[in-house]
């Protein structure tokens, strides 16, 4: 999976009571810079719009001071959306890193294993059979995505989950769902089809503090599991035999990782619909920038946050026509990845 044979990286030992974690200096630096960028972008995104607030006023308002009008606009209107971009981006990226590590394939992400196709199928069915309200669309997407994951899981299970079989069966199921979606789009009215396609790429337009809070609460235990699981996943990267020899239980770790990945994507989907590409691009971008030999969950999370936040700002403010963020994440995430690849080549040449 790695592109480069990294020279022995400088590490520092971080002690936290009885825990001692060796961390690479470069990873810490990269993470700090990206977190700072997220903070700056977050403050800017809270300030811009038809009602503009200066950055210092934004910070004052967030700290509890500031004018009433500012507080209404920033805290009640804009904050849920900005927080959603940051947190959902992180959740999707962690899910992507889990999928890619488990399958040992940089192309494997929830997007490609049929989850987003399944979510879109669920959304289309809800749109045609139930109603076009945002609630019915997200519930449809959620059911579709999770049902697809379960089907792929059941079909791939033969006394354990093997990465290659999972990928091939995921491709098959995803292809059928994609075809069904194309067929549905051809059958319904042009206007409805355009509406469905727009919202089917994921959007942060309908985020509320309530829906975001619920999703984050339900994702929290899974994030905890992912954090604990991280080190044993790294051993999976060496191949099943080595992992088993060094005491890890590959099948168990893999199963848990996939369940966690699906749960994180489901939580994000329940708020914003199927947002494309963040989970595929963010872990790879993180690996390129931090030059880590494996995919890091924490770094993936901060890069997921910055990609989704930046994409949403582009979608809201920079485009001539307002588009859902999912359309932009594909381009922004893709452009980011291209840039990383070019820089990596420059560095090595």
């Amino acid at each position, binding site marked *: *999976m790695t*592109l480069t044979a990294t020279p022995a990286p400088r590490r520092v030992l971080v002690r936290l009571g009885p825990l001692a974690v060796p961390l690479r200096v470069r990873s810490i630096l990269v993470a700090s810079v990206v977190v700072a960028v997220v903070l700056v972008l977050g403050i800017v995104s809270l300030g811009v719009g038809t009602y503009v607030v200066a950055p210092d006023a934004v910070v004052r308002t967030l700290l509890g001071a500031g004018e009433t009008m500012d507080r209404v606009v920033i805290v009640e209107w804009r904050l849920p959306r900005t927080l959603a971009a940051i947190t959902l981006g992180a959740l999707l990226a962690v899910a992507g890193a889990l999928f890619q590590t488990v399958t040992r*394939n*940089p*192309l*494997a992400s929830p997007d*490609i294993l049929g989850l987003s196709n399944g979510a879109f199928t669920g959304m289309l069915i809800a749109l045609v059979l139930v109603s076009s309200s945002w609630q019915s669309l997200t519930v449809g997407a959620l059911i579709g995505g999770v049902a697809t994951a379960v089907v792929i899981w059941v*079909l*791939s299970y*033969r006394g354990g989950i093997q990465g*290659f*079989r999972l*990928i*091939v*069966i995921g*491709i*098959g*199921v995803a*292809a*059928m769902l*994609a*075809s*069904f979606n*194309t*067929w549905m*789009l*051809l059958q319904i009215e*042009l*206007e409805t*089809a*355009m509406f469905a*396609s*727009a919202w089917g*790429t994921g959007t942060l337009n309908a985020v509320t503090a309530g829906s975001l809070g619920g999703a984050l609460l339900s994702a929290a235990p899974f994030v905890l599991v992912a954090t604990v699981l991280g080190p044993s996943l790294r051993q999976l990267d060496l191949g099943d035999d080595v992992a088993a020899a060094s005491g890890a239980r590959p099948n168990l770790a893999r199963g848990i990782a996939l369940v966690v990945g699906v749960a994180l994507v489901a939580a994000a989907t329940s708020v914003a619909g199927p947002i494309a*590409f963040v989970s*595929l*691009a963010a872990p*790879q971008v993180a690996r390129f920038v931090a030059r880590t030999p494996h995919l890091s969950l924490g770094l993936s999370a901060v890069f997921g946050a910055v990609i989704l936040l930046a994409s949403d700002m582009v979608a809201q403010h920079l*485009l001539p*026509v307002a*588009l859902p963020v999912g*359309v*932009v*994440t*594909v*381009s*922004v*995430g*893709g*452009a*980011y*990845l*291209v840039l990383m*690849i*070019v820089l*990596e*080549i*420059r560095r*090595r*040449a």
Partner: protein
Amino acid sequence: MTALTGVESPPARPPVRRSRRGAALSVVVAALIVAVALSLMIGANPLSPQVVWATLRGEGSTETTYIVIGLRIPRTVAGLVAGAALGVAGALTQAFTRNPLADPGILGVNAGAALAVALGVALLGLRDISALVWLALAGAFVVTIAVYLIGSSGRGAADPLRLTLAGVALGAVFSGITTGMTLSNPDAFDSMRSWNAGSLLGRGFDVIMPVLPFIAIGLALAFLVGPAMNALALGDDVARAQGADVRRIRVAVIVSTTLLAGAATALVGPIAFVGLMIPHVVRWTFGVDQRTIIALSALLAPVLVLLSDVLGRVVIAPAEVPVGIVTAFVGAPVLIVLARRKRASAL
């Protein structure tokens, strides 16, 4: 080109293996002939084999001549040509990237073709497939060249992993632009939702002939490079030790894949699943020799395309389901059953 074939071929196989391969070959060829026959016979207006045969000899009525010669033969030829191209492109892509998820569109072919078609519809008002075929071809080639330049700059031969990621990344950028553009232009959206489904309908010889040379060159290159792909499958170092020129092989593979996938996509739209699935099935059934995989993919992929097209004509007759949609529903269950049953080999 000598470097491409400069790898010694393995010693002659024992006669048993050879006869088994012969049997496999005849089964696949028979399936292909049946698929072609069905494609000529079945449709909104079913014809008996006798009528089709008579019409082919020039003894049919005006009506059957129109149906068989005017409609079904071009359609069948389009299916044969595009199917073979997609199958071989898929075989090359999977061997080259060593990634089972890689479809022929991985190097950005589909995204480039789609963007060019969407631009043609939105800006130039083109709707006719005979005009769009050139745009699709150009778009596919331009994007693949960009992917290659990004993925292979710097030292050394083009790194497959980097090329794969570059293809995915650049493809994503372009597909995002296409989506954004079509979502703000109902006309373009309407055209693209049909184009995306993939279809053999209305692909007359005026559309087939322009793409035929590209596919012919692509196929020739694929068969030339086949023996060397076996060496490459063992890893770059082993291949070099066996005297293969890794860089030239890679370039030949990329050129071949681009010609095949680009031309096929221009002709019938994005039916990526064929190229994804057929090489897996061939590999699991007939072994890992790349020459076998390439040759049998070229024969088996058109079977899937033609049978799917025939099924699409009858399943909701008198209306039709586009072939790209049927392909996944016919192919995916087969792929899933095989992946579960066999000790399905990775690459």
